[in-house]
């Protein structure tokens, strides 16, 4: 199986047509808009343009489909693709970092799924196979990650109904937790989006409301007019409620039946983390545990009330830089204390190797941060002083100073790290708290940074670069920073095992 060059499932053609059409529309939409506004006289040009676009899309998809073949040979995945520029890509299997299987509604209808392969060599996923039968996709994933044998691949039915069959289940989201995940999303962006939408379409909205108003019987009009102050007061609450509902709905759809389990194997190099989730777009992700480079727990004030974090796990990826950039991402919501300890044990088995040492930023960090924040807010106080007189300016300056002082203190208290001499766990943030954990044996580079003032004050920053993100220890005393740098450097240089 997969030893001879093969094409995708025939449905891949349909998906490719959709994909090509999408990219064509995305790149040429201004032309279509221009044609549309030419008026009736030139409508035929518009029709011509659409026809040519359709033909190009269809031809492009057919050629792309025909040219795209893949096969496995000598521990490498060989891919031939491209229409005008023909590519021959060979990916060594040991360089593959993660393989994710996805299935949208159309793919589910035809019982096929898409496969995304990530190496550390490109900003996004290295390769996408749009349509493969579900079982074939899992078999290919097993071969690519060399972790499971073909005969052990679970069938699609077993995957769908798998409630108890998964080994070493770490996280399973039940409905109440799923609702909590939805409630703890960032609603502010959605509220902002709703208000922006209302402002943008206020003209149209006003017309619609006026038209509806004409149709309302006069008795109801009187009642509505009487209640209008109440409606005005309640409208922000309604907007907020709708935003929260949208958040809950999107979370439920995305994380439906989320399960995370560990593929156990005697060989540590073959242990892998699996995640399945999704109601409309089903995702099945797999990351070998030894390929995990960077792990981040994050929470907000609401999530802290529910007592859980969101966990981001990253394998090596050219996108690097943490949760927002590049590569295939594994994000697990609603991780509380128990699973957190379990994930620590899985991804950092030797943590803590020795007694933990706590590292905190020097007091200079607090004063510096306060000073910088006061400088940032001072123009506001100055403006208040100019506009409202000097007493108001002084009050504003006092307020700004107190607020930024409180803020700097909270930041300083929330910034700390622990290390056992092999790993480092960095905590940051006040309202939005983050904890980044890395293994020093997997570091790519160690950066020591210090400006002239910091050199006089005896403080420095340390940045640990991994293949998928950084961990920063800010404002350490210079001697501690140098010791930690040398220790981390010794750890990475004395490590001889697999790291990626």
């Amino acid at each position: 199986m997969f030893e001879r060059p093969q094409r995708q499932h025939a449905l891949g053609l349909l998906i490719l047509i959709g994909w090509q059409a999408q990219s064509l529309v995305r790149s040429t939409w201004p032309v279509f808009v221009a044609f549309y506004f030419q008026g009736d006289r030139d409508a035929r040009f518009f029709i011509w343009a659409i026809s040519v676009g359709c033909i190009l899309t269809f031809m492009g998809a057919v050629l792309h489909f025909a040219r795209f073949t893949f096969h496995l040979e000598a521990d490498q995945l060989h891919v031939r693709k491209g229409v005008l520029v023909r590519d021959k890509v060979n990916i060594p299997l040991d360089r593959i970092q993660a393989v994710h299987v996805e299935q949208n509604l159309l793919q589910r209808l035809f019982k096929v799924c898409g496969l995304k392969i990530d190496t550390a060599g490109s900003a996004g996923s290295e390769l996408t196979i749009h349509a493969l039968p579900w079982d074939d996709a899992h078999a290919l994933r097993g071969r690519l990650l060399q972790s499971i044998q073909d005969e052990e691949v679970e069938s699609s039915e077993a995957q769908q109904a798998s409630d108890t069959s998964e080994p070493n289940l770490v996280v399973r989201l039940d409905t109440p937790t799923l609702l909590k995940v939805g409630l703890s999303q960032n609603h502010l962006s959605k509220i902002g989006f709703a208000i922006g939408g209302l402002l943008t379409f206020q003209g149209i909205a006003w017309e619609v409301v006026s038209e509806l108003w004409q149709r309302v019987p006069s008795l109801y009009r009187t009642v509505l007019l009487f209640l209008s102050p109440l409606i005005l007061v309640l409208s922000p609450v309604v907007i907020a409620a709708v935003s929260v509902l949208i958040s809950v709905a999107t979370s439920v759809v995305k994380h439906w039946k989320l399960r995370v389990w560990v593929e156990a194997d005697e060989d540590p190099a073959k242990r892998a983390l699996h995640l399945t989730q999704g109601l409309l777009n089903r995702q099945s992700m797999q990351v070998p545990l030894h390929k995990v480079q960077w792990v981040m727990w994050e929470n907000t004030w609401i999530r802290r009330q529910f007592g859980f974090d969101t966990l981001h796990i990253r394998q090596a990826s050219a996108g690097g830089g943490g949760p927002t950039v590049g590569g295939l991402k594994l994000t697990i919501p609603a991780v509380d204390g128990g699973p957190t300890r379990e994930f620590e044990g899985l991804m950092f088995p030797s943590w803590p190797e020795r007694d933990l040492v706590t590292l905190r930023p020097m007091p200079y960090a607090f004063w510096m941060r306060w000073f910088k924040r006061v400088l940032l807010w001072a123009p506001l106080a100055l403006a208040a002083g100019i506009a409202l007189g000097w007493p108001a300016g002084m009050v504003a300056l006092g307020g700004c100073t107190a607020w930024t002082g409180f803020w700097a203190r909270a930041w300083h208290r929330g910034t700390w790290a622990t290390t056992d001499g092999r790993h480092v766990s960095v905590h940051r943030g006040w309202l939005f708290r983050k904890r980044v954990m890395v293994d020093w044996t997997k570091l790519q580079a160690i950066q020591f940074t210090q400006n002239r003032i910091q050199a006089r004050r005896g403080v420095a920053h340390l940045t640990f670069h991994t293949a998928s993100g950084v961990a920063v220890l800010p404002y350490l005393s210079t001697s501690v920073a140098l010791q930690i740098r040398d220790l981390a450097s010794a750890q990475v240089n004395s490590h001889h095992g697999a790291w990626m």
Partner: protein
Amino acid sequence: MNDPTVIQPDLNPLVDVASLPRVEEDCLTPLPRAYAKARILVYGLSFVVTGVAWVAPCLWLLMQEGEQGPPAALWWTLGGAWTGVMVLWGLEEHMGWPMRGFLVRERDVVYRSGWWTTQVVAVPFSRIQHSEIQQGPLGKLLGFCSLKLFTAGASGANLNIPGLPPETARNIRQLLEANQGV
């Protein structure tokens, strides 16, 4: 409570921090003078080009509007900003030159740069995915090149050592290839 900013020796009994191999910053190899010349040349050119770029329009305005000329505030703002940037840049170049240097150890390569903000980056040989020697027209003229060391991912861990003599860059590369499996 113990001072958390200091590593407690009794908490870490198995690691003798003093015995760890240190990055001996005093032993850094300085970059060749040819690269310093190139940096002075770039600075000088930028000085002239940006100077002309702000003085020429002001002079043109002066000629157009006769004796009145452009407002004094414009002269002061543009001139002040330009002078400030150029002085700071010049200071950084002058004071930063002795700070620049690299160190090749058995298992990693270290590069230090910057005067106002000093950065010391260490990249282990075993983490380097590929390397590149780059030589531009100025480098060809003055005889230096840049050695770029690329690591996995792109979280800013790539190292660029500019201004190396081509022979040194090639030697480092050979050492790198010989030590990659270590």
